[in-house]
């Protein structure tokens, strides 16, 4: 079973990997966007880590709802509402129980991803974060490691696609040949989930 501590580790691990990868995310955002994806997410997840340390909610759902609200208040751009909605809706779907099963997490994350698709109007194949999140949720039924692999493969698979949502869509065919920064950061979020599950003590560094 997964408790609030596990979800805090997930968020902390995400903050650490976003900080590490911020420059790469910004570099991916440069040819097809406006070169700020890394710095925006870094600002947001730093705020998430700070607020979780201060407030320490005691249920999995409350951890994710607080993290989501913090992202909406600090990130801006499209990433703020989209990542904020993903975490808030996943957290709400988990309810207020102290521990949740992996199966409950899978169902809740699916609800979160559905909410992101509704909000952004994106579907798989549009070259967005959805392209790594959807396969990750499907694979999560199997294991955290499978979810990480599926998300990373999903992000890589966005390279040949033409963007149909977000700023890259304004480039039309010129968006082809570049890996999507949103799908890449979403893969970091899923990888952090696996990190929190596999090496609890390593996730805090």
């Amino acid at each position: 079973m997964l408790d609030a501590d596990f979800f805090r580790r997930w968020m902390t691990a995400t903050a650490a990997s976003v900080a590490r990868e911020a420059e790469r995310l910004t570099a991916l955002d440069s040819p097809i966007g406006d070169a700020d994806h890394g710095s925006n997410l870094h600002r947001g997840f730093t705020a998430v880590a700070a607020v979780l340390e201060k407030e320490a909610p005691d249920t999995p759902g409350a951890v994710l709802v607080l993290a989501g609200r913090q992202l909406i208040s600090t990130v801006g751009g499209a990433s703020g509402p989209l990542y904020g909605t993903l975490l808030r809706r996943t957290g709400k779907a988990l309810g207020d129980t102290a521990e949740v099963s992996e199966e409950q997490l899978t169902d809740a994350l699916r609800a979160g991803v559905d909410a992101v698709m509704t909000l952004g109007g994106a579907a798989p194949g549009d070259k967005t974060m959805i392209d790594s999140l959807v396969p990750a949720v499907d694979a999560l039924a199997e294991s955290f490691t499978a979810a990480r692999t599926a998300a990373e493969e999903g992000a890589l698979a966005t390279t040949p696609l033409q963007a149909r949502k977000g700023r890259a869509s304004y480039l039309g065919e010129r968006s082809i040949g570049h890996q999507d920064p949103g799908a890449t950061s979403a893969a970091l979020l899923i990888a952090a989930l696996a990190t929190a599950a596999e090496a609890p003590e390593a996730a805090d560094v």
Partner: protein
Amino acid sequence: MKMLINVAETVVADALRGMAAAHPELTVDVENRVVVRRDAPVAGKVGLVSGGGSGHEPLHGGFVGPGMLSAACPGEVFTSPVPDQMVRAAAAVDSGAGVLFIVKNYTGDVLNFDMAAELAEDEGIQIAKVLVNDDVAVTDSLYTAGRRGTGATLFVEKIAGAAAEEGQPLERVEALARQVNENSRSFGVALSACTTPAKGSPTFDLPAGELELGVGIHGEPGRERRAMMTSREIADFSVHALLEDMHPRNPVLLLVNGMGATPLLELYGFNAEVQRVLTERGVAVARTLVGNYVTSLDMAGASVTLCQVDEELLRLYDAPVKTPGLRWGV
């Protein structure tokens, strides 16, 4: 790349502190990033709130004041502001007559303003929204995020602002804003990419001797690249792109807008060419505005915006305005 800044992280806050010092007629909340006209809320007047990423100055903070915006929310550079800012702005300018959000069609701006509208309505503020999407360089289709909002934002804010100043009700101010947007089209070209403070190098690679046609205002590349053209050729290309998409029957407002790094010498010369081709195409220009109004940091280049107006829109455009970036009739 050299920039007149301290560090990238404080660029927006530093600019707002300087803006506050230069414009005591505005209330600039540096911490919460909201710029409000000092006499807000004005009794009985609809509030006009806009906002978007920073880096487009004077848009939007420079258009706050009597006759135009009631408040603006500057986001990080090229990044939409967050809903907290918009709710704070709406609360500061609402006199009970409601608030119009003017939103440029970029996914981030749309999502954050949508969330803010819900939150503000929860607080009992009546909100209406108008989406600006005037950029003909982007194909309008069901399968994309739609056209970008660029130069027409100035016309929407000016004309809706004048109507609000007269005390017209929210539905009417909203309808006028929509009418201005529907009657406006823009097209932009870049002679150089811009450099964001966070990245420190040009956002895309544009070799000497080439230009990008159909750019937006966020440093993203345009719809095609060509060998450098003369001012005359660029004017022909831009105006033809606009007139392929609109067929003005009335006189138009013309905005020849600099992207930030093109001198007025070049912009006025470009305006001469734009006026020539409009005359050749039989389009009468009622008013012309030339300068840096909707910019993209240090990008070189220009955009052309046309707005077809009737007598009422022209009267509202001519009405007095007193803001840091636009001022006449006062």
